[in-house]
């Protein structure tokens, strides 16, 4: 789950669904499609900043993005939420551009900026017309070089972040359930806590924590800079070199030591709140992005819940009519992540019965596999999704950044279509059998309580 710097207009659930589908290219039944060549130029500056440029003149605009290898994964109890808080502070003043000036100068020049933090990464971007490259390079390099962390703004920004937490977790039924699911599924690993952090930690984070965090994680050697769009590659490199080249590299952060131990049995939790409809959130301990199984899992996800002809939608919403929504997603993450099902039930439906049907369907795939038609449909869907994600300069740049963070190399994007093409029905059956084992299950049930009134 990712948190933007400001309120996303889409509902949280929709956001999760989008993220789930975000990393999913494939090509099926089409030998016309050429191997994907992003046509980028890569260079690493002396200070370790990796620069990836994708020249594309189709629209007179560009997207500049910086991805940092830092997220909730790098936090520890006591400072949970600091990665996301730092994302906010990056907009609150540096050296050449003081508090408020980043947004003021950018917007007055027709640019838009936003950022997000996830468990694995933090990313910043500006979208602007072609002639705005030097401006956004100036703005972004200023904060990478010398973030101010002004005390007044630390304080007001923490107020903003607490409101964000109240908005998307404390006063959100889905937010509470999602927080509960990760706390249930992770006993040791930092994926346990929310990206937004625990409220008590937000109360406690101080300027010194931020200064240390900034120095460690916001170093050029811990970042990747991407520009996609309408510019000249040589000129852009020169600009980047000029603005970022003088920023000092730092000691690389220590690698994360803690791994989540194996789960040996189902875990369950309840959320009791007044609510109109019951919900279920089921997370199976799955695998990390380094596993070759991720492609087969994506195909399986598509077969299970993408579209109204998918297995679970048909079974739960149409045939048994127990649910009104049936969604699932598998997020590619650095360390083993969850395969999550989210089910919204009819008001009078029994969550236990719904769970039973879900497990029956999963068992059916684990024992009987999937059909050739389902495989073809899933691969077509993944191919179209991939193309949809490449429609904008922002989409291209952000895909490159995401792959850099997850795989350490954007070039994996180019391999992915082949990986999907190679998934067989047997692979899908095998991953269903492996990862949907009851011992890997974490179940959060929303039990609607009557509102007092």
């Amino acid at each position, binding site marked *: 789950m990712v948190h933007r710097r400001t309120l996303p207009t889409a509902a949280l659930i929709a956001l999760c669904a989008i993220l789930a589908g975000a990393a999913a290219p494939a090509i099926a039944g089409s030998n016309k499609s050429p191997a994907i060549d992003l046509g980028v130029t890569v260079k690493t500056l002396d200070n370790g900043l990796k620069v990836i440029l994708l020249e594309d003149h189709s629209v007179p605009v560009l997207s500049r993005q910086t991805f940092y290898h830092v997220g909730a994964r790098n936090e520890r109890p006591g400072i949970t939420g600091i990665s996301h808080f730092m994302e906010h502070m990056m907009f609150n003043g540096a050296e050449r551009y003081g508090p408020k000036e980043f947004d003021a100068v950018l917007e007055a020049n027709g640019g838009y900026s936003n950022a997000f933090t996830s468990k694995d990464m933090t990313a910043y971007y500006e979208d602007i017309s072609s002639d*705005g490259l030097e401006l956004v390079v100036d703005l972004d390099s200023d904060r990478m070089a010398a973030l101010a962390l002004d005390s007044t703004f630390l304080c007001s920004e923490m107020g903003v972040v607490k409101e964000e937490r*109240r*908005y998307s977790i404390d006063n959100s039924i889905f937010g509470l359930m999602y927080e509960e699911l990760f706390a249930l599924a992770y006993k040791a690993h930092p994926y346990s806590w929310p990206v937004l952090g625990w409220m008590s930690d937000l109360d406690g984070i101080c300027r010194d924590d931020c200064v240390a965090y900034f120095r460690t994680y916001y170093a050029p050697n811990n970042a990747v800079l991407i520009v996609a769009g309408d510019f000249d590659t040589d000129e852009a490199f020169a600009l980047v070199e000029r603005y970022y080249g003088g920023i000092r590299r730092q000691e690389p952060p220590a690698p994360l030591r803690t791994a989540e131990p194996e789960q040996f049995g189902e875990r369950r939790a309840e959320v009791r709140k007044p609510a109109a409809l019951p919900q279920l959130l089921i997370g199976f301990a799955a695998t990390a992005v380094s596993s070759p199984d991720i492609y087969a899992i994506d195909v399986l996800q598509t077969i299970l819940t993408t579209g109204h*002809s998918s297995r679970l939608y048909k079974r739960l919403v149409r045939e048994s009519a127990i649910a009104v929504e049936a969604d699932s997603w598998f997020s590619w993450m650095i360390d083993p992540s969850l395969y999550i099902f989210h089910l919204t039930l009819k008001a009078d439906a029994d969550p236990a019965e719904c769970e039973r049907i879900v497990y029956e369907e999963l068992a059916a795939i684990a024992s009987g596999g999937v059909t050739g038609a389902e495989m073809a449909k899933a691969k077509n869907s993944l191919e179209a999704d991939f193309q949809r994600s490449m429609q904008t300069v922002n989409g291209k740049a952000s895909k490159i950044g995401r792959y850099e963070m997850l795989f350490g190399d954007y070039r994996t994007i180019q391999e992915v279509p082949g990986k999907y093409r190679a998934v067989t029905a047997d692979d899908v059956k095998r991953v269903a059998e492996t990862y949907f084992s009851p011992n890997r299950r974490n179940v959060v049930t929303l039990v609607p309580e009557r*509102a007092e*009134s």
Partner: protein
Amino acid sequence: MKQTIIAAMAVLLFAAAAPASAGTAGIDLPEYTKHTLENGLTVFVMETREVPLVSIRLLLPAGSAADPAGFEGAANLTAELVMKGAGGMGADEIAEQIEGLGGELSASADRDYTAVAGNFLARDLAAALEILGTVVASPDFPADEVERQKEIVTAAIHSVKDSPYRFASREFARLLAAGHPYGHPVEGSAADVEKLTRADVAAFHAANWVPEGAFLAIVGDIDAKTALKLAKKRLGSWRGERAAAAVPVLERRTFPGTRVVVIDDPELTQSQIRIGNIAVGMDSPDYFALAVGNNTLGGGFTSRLMDEIRVNRGLSYGARSGLAQYRRGGTFTVVTYTKNETLREAIDVALEQVRLMRDETLTGEELASSQRYLSGLFPFRIETNDHLAGWLTRLAFYGLGEDFVETYRERIGAVTAADVQRVARENFHAEDCLIVLLANYAETKDQLAGLGGIEVIAKADIE
């Protein structure tokens, strides 16, 4: 925000200094063709070459504003149901055909129109149009699907109460335009949806899903001639005659002394705030001045509401204003939320910012910033096939002019600070307005004194 004559001079200086790129330079849409078929359907075809995809979008004059009295939700249910059986194909078969191609196609109602829209691999255009034509012109409305969909829609209506943000917005719209077809939620009310029958849905379809006044756009990596031929072949024989009553104008009204409605939810630690009034519709000549004014007040990250509520005071994660403009009128809304303890402070700051838009002219710097922001980002709003199909159909549907995109920057650039103040006075009200709060009343009531006439409704009493 103190400015007088100096401000007016600054406007001129900034206008002169604006760089060409993000200033007033025209933006060209890719070339496209426009054909009106014999049955009245207008077809736009545009070739783009970026990705091997095609977007198709049909806009029909069949919005929730056309819901018959007592049958709120008819437009929405009809849209949902055309995908659940057409031309003898069952719901599963239709879904199977669309998804088998890796495509997406859905029908959804809005207030003024229903859109049937989708996105396919370009090689599948013919199949996509075949499905679209079938669901639009020959839906079967199978009885069992009607019942099933009614249950799903009813659940969706109830589930809005589980999202404070959406629930507050829904109830605000309902109260603001009460008695007008723009007031009820597009999904309708659970009580009305319960009453809807297969015959009602079929009647709504026959009266509103007609080619006359409908617009189809096909945009993507396709051959224009072939696409037009396919559209003619599949939709040229579609017949129908519009038999719906015209939507009345949403009359301007005020709420003397300000009406404050508190929807009480004792669970909440954060209150949802909606403030607003009736405003002008899509046909207003003030479209561009309103866009600039709204952006200054509550658009980007540097807007006045964002600056005062979020940046300076840390009261909220989000604070914005918005105009919803329809054919027969519109609404203006300020949206924010804050912890229970600071509810009144946030309301007062928001009202003060609305008031300042009326009482004072913008500084030249603010005006220029909004103009350049809107102009600079416009190319990002015409970047994808979906965007382009959206513009072609929407501009035609609302009669905004075929030169809208091309002249957008010029017209944004021509807005003056005086224009903004005038449209603010007419459309942004800080007095005699409607305030809806979804809040924990026991914890916040002491803060509300003097705000206006207060009514409290228990959340449980709202359907």
